[in-house]
């Protein structure tokens, strides 16, 4: 059995400061096998691939055997030389160079060439494209090709380096159905030549259409490897989900007083035909896989990424929102996903940050800030949000993650929003602080604020969402009642 394996990874763990990203992962890929690697967002797929490609070093005790050779350590160059080629989602190609040059560039650099031989360049590119049975004009500039063709160029480039295992990360995410079909026939062709493929995707239909075996990761742990005939959609989903729920589950409410309505909102390349209603005092959870269009939708509502068509209706009035200032004026606030880079000015004090959205309120007629008004406002929010330590002049970067999140919340709550959108509100903070934030959001909703919570973390959505809206590939796949909802039900709609 072991002789059939091109790649054997055993007992691979990876610890980042404070987080154990991977725990004792096993992964075996046969020669000429199409192997699917699947798991939820954050299950550890990318980390595993980065270990395989030499970007990260695994923790002590990992065993990695590539093509029969035990690898004590792997550098990116080792990985390439052992025949592992990772095709990232951005392809790592050069948009301004010709197809031929893109294909031949890596081998040129590897051979430490000084002078360029264009005839050789064309020969290398021609033979790589021939292996794939492709006809792409060699002299064409890469940026003139469709995304699908660019991807094929990336695959051809991998073949030039004698790749024996090609890792494809979400290779179909920007392809049309027809293009996916032709990519698959090329992948099958590679398989016949004995080349293995490690295929990462969220699209179950595609995975079942192409894969021989499936390895499943969940929460950084290895769940198992299964043959294609051992699995169906339901089984696969139940293996993928099932993170432990460590949060208090709030009682789900049924609210009837509509306050905010989104009608047929569309934006090309972002989302399509989004309609939903938000009720007064409700927490609406929006979830879906990364790349489903959740944040794009939130940013459209907030005016950061204006939509092409559709309507926003707040308290019966149709809104014009083309910029965030307009959204704030109407009473819509948005707290972005990455609070550290997008939500806060880390080098400024807590007080300065909290006031940022309401400078007009605390300014005199002449446009100068009145210190007394600022202090009063800041003290009120520190008190109300229990920000610790309660020192207004503390530099924000020195606060803990949970308290930083409270500062961001205060900043937006100071605008007195009717609709509050929070994107991944508890990303990267510890469990205790997460529970606090959940309680806070719940309290706000009980005071009558309507809240949209966007989160990838299903337990979080289940804990606080009165209703749950699941997005898939830019559309709303389902609107689910939060009562007795399970992770499996959500994942079924998301995939």
């Amino acid at each position: 059995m072991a002789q059939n394996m091109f790649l054997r990874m055993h007992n691979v763990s990876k610890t980042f400061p404070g987080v154990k990203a991977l725990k004792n992962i096993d992964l075996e890929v046969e020669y000429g096998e199409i192997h699917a690697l699947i798991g939820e967002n954050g299950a550890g797929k990318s980390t595993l691939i980065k270990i395989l490609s030499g970007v990260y070093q695994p923790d002590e005790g990992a065993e990695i055997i590539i093509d029969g050779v035990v690898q004590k350590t792997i550098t990116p160059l080792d990985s390439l030389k052992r025949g592992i080629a990772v095709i990232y989602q951005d392809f790592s190609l050069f948009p301004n160079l010709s197809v031929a040059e893109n294909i031949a560039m890596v081998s040129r650099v590897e051979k430490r060439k000084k002078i360029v031989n264009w005839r050789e360049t064309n020969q290398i590119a021609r033979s790589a494209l021939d292996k794939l049975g492709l006809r792409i004009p060699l002299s064409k500039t890469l940026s003139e090709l469709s995304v699908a063709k660019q991807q094929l160029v990336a695959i051809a480039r991998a073949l030039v380096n004698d790749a024996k295992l090609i890792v494809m990360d979400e290779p179909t995410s920007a392809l049309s159905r027809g293009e996916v079909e032709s990519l698959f026939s090329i992948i099958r062709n590679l398989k016949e030549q004995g080349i293995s493929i490690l295929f990462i995707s969220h699209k179950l239909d595609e995975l079942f259409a192409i894969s021989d075996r499936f390895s499943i990761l969940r929460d950084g742990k290895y769940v198992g490897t299964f043959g294609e005939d051992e699995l169906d959609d339901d089984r696969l989903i139940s293996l993928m989900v099932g993170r432990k729920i460590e949060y208090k589950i709030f009682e789900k409410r049924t609210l009837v007083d509509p306050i905010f309505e989104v009608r047929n909102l569309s934006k090309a390349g972002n989302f399509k035909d989004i309609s939903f209603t938000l009720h007064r005092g409700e927490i609406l959870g929006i979830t879906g896989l990364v790349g489903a269009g959740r944040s794009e939708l939130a940013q459209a509502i907030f005016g950061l990424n204006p939509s092409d068509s559709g309507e926003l209706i707040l308290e019966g009035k149709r809104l014009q929102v083309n910029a965030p200032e307009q959204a704030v004026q109407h009473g819509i606030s948005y707290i972005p996903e990455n609070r550290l880079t997008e939500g806060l000015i880390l080098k400024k004090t807590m007080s300065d940050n909290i006031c940022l959205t309401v400078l007009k309120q605390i300014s005199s007629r002449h446009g100068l800030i009145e210190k007394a008004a600022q202090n009063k406002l800041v003290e009120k929010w520190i008190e109300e949000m229990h920000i610790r330590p309660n020192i207004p002049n503390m530099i924000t970067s020195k606060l803990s993650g949970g308290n930083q999140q409270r500062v961001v919340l205060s900043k937006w709550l100071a605008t007195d929003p009717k609709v509050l959108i929070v994107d991944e509100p508890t990303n990267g903070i510890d469990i205790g602080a997460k529970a606090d934030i959940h309680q806070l959001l719940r309290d706000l909703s009980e005071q009558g604020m309507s809240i949209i919570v966007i989160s990838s973390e299903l337990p979080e959505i289940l804990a606080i969402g009165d209703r749950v809206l699941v997005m898939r590939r830019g559309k709303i796949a389902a609107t689910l009642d939060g009562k007795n909802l399970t992770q499996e039900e959500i994942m079924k709609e998301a995939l």
Partner: protein
Amino acid sequence: MNNIFSQIKRSKEMGILAILVVISIIISAFNSSFLTFGNLLDVVKSNIVLGIMSMGMLLVLLTGGIDVSIASVISAVTVIIGRFMVDYSSNIFLIFVVGVVAGSLMGLINGLLIAKLKIPPIVATLGTMSVIFGLVLYLTNGNWITGIPQNFIDFGRVTIGQFPVAGSDQIQGIPIQFLFLLFAIALTWFILKYTMIGRGIYAIGGNRDSAERIGMNSENITLFIYTYEGFLIGLAGVVHTSIMRQVDPNAFIGFEIQVIAAVVLGGASVLGGYGSVSGTIIGVSLFCIINNGLILMHIPTFWQKIVVGIVLITSISFDVIQKRMHDKKNIKVDIDESESSFKRLGVAEKSTSQA
């Protein structure tokens, strides 16, 4: 055949060439002396320095960098070789060596600041510009250097071939300085087309992360670019002095904007990655002809500055808008356009693929 035609139609260079032809026709309609051999020869001769320096600037722009210190560098080179030939030696070969080494060293300093200390090119070269201009003034007090040795003056007067000038009895030859322009063009073309450093310059301009990921050394390439640019400026400094036969330390103030504008006009993108030697030649020609046309049409010289600025801003806006439109086209989310339930489809595909 069709293919070649469509490629020509698409190329940016052809577009600029078309503008060049149209503008030439317009100018010659206003002034019949424009399209004469004598005038064109004058245009070429007075823009040889601009042409040589544009080749260096092309490399810098290709990686997404910029160099605003070039005017100060060529001033320093002319002062150094001026003093050298007046005080030490009039050996023409030595004069070239001193000029080229001085230019290369100043370029290397820019390169080190940008590649090793990672200072943004605009800031690094602004700094060196100020330092070098300051030193030039300190060394010369702003005074001209005259008394250039006769053999160097004679060298500068050498011409090649004899061409009768239409409409007069005069006979003109191609000035020797033109050969240095051809040399700079040929060398730059060879580097960009046939060396790995040249291809690396394009690769870095196209996608720096990818270039580094496949093992290209972007630091060394950056060092090379600025040093090579300095080398060309050194050459241009000697050529300039051989034409002017004296050194004016203030002659080049504001010259950097002309070089940058000419290269950008030739299709090089300030965002990096795009630009070519042939495009730059056309761009420089267009730029010179516009300038010459303004003179022939007796338009006051301050208009030149205004035109240069407008040319620069228009060309760059064009690039930026084009890039924004391209970015906008990029898909963020793959919207599911199929109306049928994909899961059933998946199962169906699975069973058919087994069948």
